[in-house]
């Protein structure tokens, strides 16, 4: 029986080549997108699942509000982990990662290579996390000082092989060189881990003032005993704060109890985030790597589903539209004694056959486009992911879900025909008016319009980010890394390069207004005795005389640091936001107090106000910030003005390499680093664009097929109209009118949906565009144009056919 069905199905497919092609292309694209996005989503959801204790590992987050700006950090204080383990039996184990110091130079022969995936970890690191060892026992490897565990990749890079690396000495440079013994080699950390370290150094080598509950610099993870409710456990942090933080805090300022802190509107709170949730649900400051977002997982899942539905809709529309061709068969089969349910089964097996074919093409399409997709999505999904048992089952089952999904409506529609009406031959009447089909066309175009509007808005916002006034001039600033240059070399290089005609100014700038650069948050007070009321936190950056000029920032009041004033070592420049926090009406000349150890104070005099500049992503509002005079060894920033950027760079590179041949010249441009902060948005934009184009293509294909059939069905009507004197234009109008109505209707539905979605997306940005009416109008026009163009192929063809031919067909 099923063979008979498939035979008929196959012959039908061959007979209607046009429709078959449209259906297959549409479904292939739809299923292809669906599989790609499924791979993307599976990958996103797989983060940190591979640890044996994954379900019981939590990271401590800190939420601190002090003087106006609340900061949510992925780090906590150094004693926190140990304190929890000591005081609470639910805590089985803790471990810390200290990665606050950035990159390190590691020696390979005569060369020093800058490595970024370096961190200090506790010896308990491998008790908490599961990273299999290739050599040595990582659980004991980091107990002694001057020990290091490296990844397979690092072992091969520095020693040639895993075997050769074991027990060898590695030289790591930061403020002088330190030698480490390789005590274990681990497999490279999986891609789907929220941190990637190739060099794990013993915590014993950290140069840090341990025991400070008030400085938050350590990524701390704890393992809770099975059956512990982590949310409930969080309530213990109040106790910890009262018992350990408060005594330390009262050394610096006048606070006696937690109530004092809370009464002034400030807070010090800690929470736990499950390890498995970090990648998709956590976006604290100082994350170990840029995380994904569950929001985009939802958005893309929805897009995948909608594209698949658009493709299925094509199938439904085209199959029901040409039902007159199948109706006779249905009638005969019913007379010959078939039951409705076996007809339904027949049509379902037919749609499944089409989907199986489309599915095979889609998998091919995924194979071909995976590299390209990885590239735009910033992923490293391998073809092997397709062959994972779970994914394989998904792939095999997919056509048997999509097939019936696409076929169920046509199956019921077709099997409904009464033999007597069908066999009499008067069927096609009234077939054009199909409410559900109209609804499906509206659905397709509503989805397409929402996607088009969404894409335009994402691109507008990206453009806005690039052109908005961020308070500094990010163009034509070269940032050179100074890692480990001796002070004299660094200074002489700067004064030498400043002589170049291309250079407008140069500054030693460790703190730069793009993320992933140094930050330092410190407490100030407006009076000598700090209280919870007059105290506030702000960024506290070291800058030199040329900093403001080099960064292209603007002084709003007072003055910049100047060599002609001998007293500028205690001078401070605030941004407008910080001025607002102090409450000073006329800030110039006012004093600020910074708490030091042993209740000592440093007193600063405000000499100037700098215009607010965005030093974090435009998602966030500008926070309070201060600049004080000081030297930064890490980087030199050069503001230049040249059209020959390459020549300029190589000129500078030569000077640096001549001065320190051993260190590789590392540079970046400020505007690139700035754009890097919006890489995720850019990716989203590109992915959205691609899927929108595909969705529109699939929808247009469907419209094309539908128009073909409608025109065919109305051949006789068109013939008669032409004989009666209708012009080509009138015919085209008659044939297009119904579709245009549907698209206008789709536009009316899509507009508020798109408005709502995009407003809520834009709300993530403190600096955002306004939604413009013309975007909607433009989208409407684009969609109409696409529709009219698609339709015109068929309608014009139908309209210019000689009526004699069409009337003869009777």
């Amino acid at each position, binding site marked *: 029986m099923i063979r*008979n069905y498939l035979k008929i199905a196959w*012959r039908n497919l061959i007979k209607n080549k046009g429709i078959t092609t449209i259906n297959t292309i549409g479904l292939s694209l739809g299923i292809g997108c669906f599989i790609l996005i499924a791979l993307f989503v599976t990958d996103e959801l797989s983060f940190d699942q591979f640890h044996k204790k994954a379900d019981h590992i939590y990271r401590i987050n800190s939420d601190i509000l002090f003087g106006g700006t609340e900061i949510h950090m992925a780090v906590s204080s150094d004693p926190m982990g140990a304190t929890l383990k000591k005081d609470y039996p639910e805590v089985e184990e803790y471990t810390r990662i200290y990665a606050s110091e950035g990159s390190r130079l590691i020696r390979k022969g005569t060369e020093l290579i800058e490595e970024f995936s370096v961190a200090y970890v506790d010896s308990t690191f491998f008790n908490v996390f599961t990273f299999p060892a290739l050599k040595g026992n990582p659980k004991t490897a980091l107990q002694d000082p001057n020990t290091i565990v490296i990844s397979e990749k690092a072992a091969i890079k520095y020693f040639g092989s895993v075997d050769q690396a074991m027990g060898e000495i590695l030289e790591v440079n930061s403020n002088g060189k330190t030698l480490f013994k390789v005590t274990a080699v681990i497999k490279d950390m999986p891609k789907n881990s929220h941190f990637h370290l190739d060099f794990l150094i013993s915590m014993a080598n950290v140069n840090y003032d341990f025991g400070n509950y008030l400085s938050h610099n350590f990524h701390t993870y704890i393992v809770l005993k099975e059956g512990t409710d982590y949310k409930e456990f969080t309530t213990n942090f109040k106790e910890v704060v009262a018992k350990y933080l408060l005594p330390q805090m009262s050394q610096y300022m006048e606070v006696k109890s937690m109530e004092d802190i809370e009464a002034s509107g400030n807070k010090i709170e800690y929470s736990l985030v499950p390890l498995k949730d970090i990648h998709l649900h956590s976006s604290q400051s100082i994350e170990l790597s840029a995380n994904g977002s569950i929001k985009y997982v939802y958005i893309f899942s929805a897009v995948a589903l909608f594209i698949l539905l658009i493709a299925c809709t094509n199938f439904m529309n085209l199959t029901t539209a040409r039902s007159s061709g199948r109706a006779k068969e249905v009638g*005969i*089969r019913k007379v*010959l004694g*078939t039951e409705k349910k076996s007809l339904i089964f027949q049509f379902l097996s037919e749609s499944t056959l089409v989907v199986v074919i489309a599915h095979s093409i889609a998998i091919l399409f995924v194979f071909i486009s995976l590299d390209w997709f990885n590239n735009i999505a910033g992923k490293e999904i391998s073809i092997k992911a397709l062959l994972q048992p779970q994914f394989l089952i998904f792939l095999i089952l997919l056509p048997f879900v999509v097939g019936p999904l696409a076929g169920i409506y046509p199956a019921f529609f077709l099997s409904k025909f009464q033999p*007597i009406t069908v*066999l009499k031959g008067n069927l096609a009447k009234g077939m054009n008016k199909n409410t559900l089909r109209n609804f499906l066309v509206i659905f397709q175009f509503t989805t397409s319009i929402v996607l088009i509007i969404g894409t335009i808005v994402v691109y507008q916002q990206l453009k806005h980010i690039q052109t908005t006034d961020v308070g500094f001039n990010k163009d034509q600033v070269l940032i050179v890394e100074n890692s480990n240059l001796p002070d004299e070399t660094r200074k002489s290089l700067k004064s030498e390069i400043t002589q170049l005609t291309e250079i407008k100014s140069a500054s030693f700038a460790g703190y730069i207004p793009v993320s992933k650069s140094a930050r330092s948050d410190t407490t100030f007070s407006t009076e000598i005795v700090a209280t919870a009321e007059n105290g506030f936190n702000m960024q506290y950056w070291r800058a030199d005389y040329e900093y403001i000029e080099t960064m292209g920032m603007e002084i709003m009041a007072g003055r910049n640091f100047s060599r002609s004033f001998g007293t500028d070592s205690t001078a401070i420049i605030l941004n407008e936001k910080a001025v607002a926090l102090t409450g000073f009406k006329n800030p110039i000349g006012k004093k600020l107090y910074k708490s030091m150890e042993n209740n000592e104070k440093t007193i600063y005099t405000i000499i100037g106000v700098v215009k607010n500049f965005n030093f974090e992503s435009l998602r966030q509002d500008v926070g309070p910030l201060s600049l004080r005079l000081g030297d930064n060894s890490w980087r030199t920033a050069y503001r230049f003005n040249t059209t020959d950027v390459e020549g300029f760079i190589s000129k500078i590179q030569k000077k640096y390499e001549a001065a320190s041949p051993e260190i590789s010249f590392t540079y970046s441009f400020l505007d690139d680093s700035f754009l890097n902060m919006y890489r995720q948005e850019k990716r989203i934009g590109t992915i959205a664009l691609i899927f929108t184009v595909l969705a529109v293509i699939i929808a247009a294909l469907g419209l094309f097929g539908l128009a073909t059939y409608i025109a065919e069905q109305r051949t006789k009507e068109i013939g008669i109209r032409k004989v009666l004197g209708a012009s080509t234009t009138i015919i085209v109008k008659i044939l297009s009118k119904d579709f245009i109505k549907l698209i206008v209707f789709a536009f009316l539905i899509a507009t508020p949906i798109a408005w709502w979605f995009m407003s809520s997306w834009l709300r993530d940005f403190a600096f955002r565009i306004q939604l413009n009416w013309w975007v909607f109008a433009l989208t409407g026009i684009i969609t109409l144009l696409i529709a009219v163009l698609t339709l015109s192929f068929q309608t014009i063809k139908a309209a210019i056919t000689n009526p004699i031919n069409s009337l003869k067909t009777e």
Partner: protein
Amino acid sequence: MILQLNNTSRVINSGGKKIALLDNINLQIEEGEFISLMGPSGSGKSTLLNCIGMLDNFTEGSYTFLDEAVHTMKEKQRSKLYKEYIGFVFQAYHLIDELNVYENIETPLLYKNVKSSERKALVADMLDRFNIVGKKDLFPSQLSGGQQQLVGIARALITKPKLILADEPTGNLNSKQSTEIMELFSELNNEGVTIIQATHSENNASYGSRIINLLDGRIVSE
């Protein structure tokens, strides 16, 4: 007796008016009869055939088929009944275009869940009997009208029905093909199959054992 109609009518609503397509028909047909329904277009021949074939329903009266009361049956029972005992032959042949001759004839057997080997044997017999073995792989569009109707009849006979309903079976054929088909019907009738045919042609009607004339939905003479 194969079927009996007592005061059966078929009344439809058309634009608010009631129109009787069949008006108070009384008819009794014995097994082995060959009935010819005659009458002008619109006299109700096709409607009567369709109603007897259970593709359509009488709206009034009682219809007994093989001692079962059809008018009280549910759709499902009716379809089971006609599937079992009735074969249809159409003026426009109504073969499935996507299936070849062999497959067209085989289709009713599929719906009766006949085993594959048995199907093969039955279809082969039928092809043999109708002398169309050589054409079994051809599609309807490759056959002449007469050949298509032969296939149509073969398909109707494959399930060994007790009753064959033929609605103008030769309406689309030339006179030579017509004669062949009518002679085939006579032959089948001689073998014991009951046949009811609707026809315009006196000549075709004469093959029947009994002629019933219809006009405006009523039997006017026998």
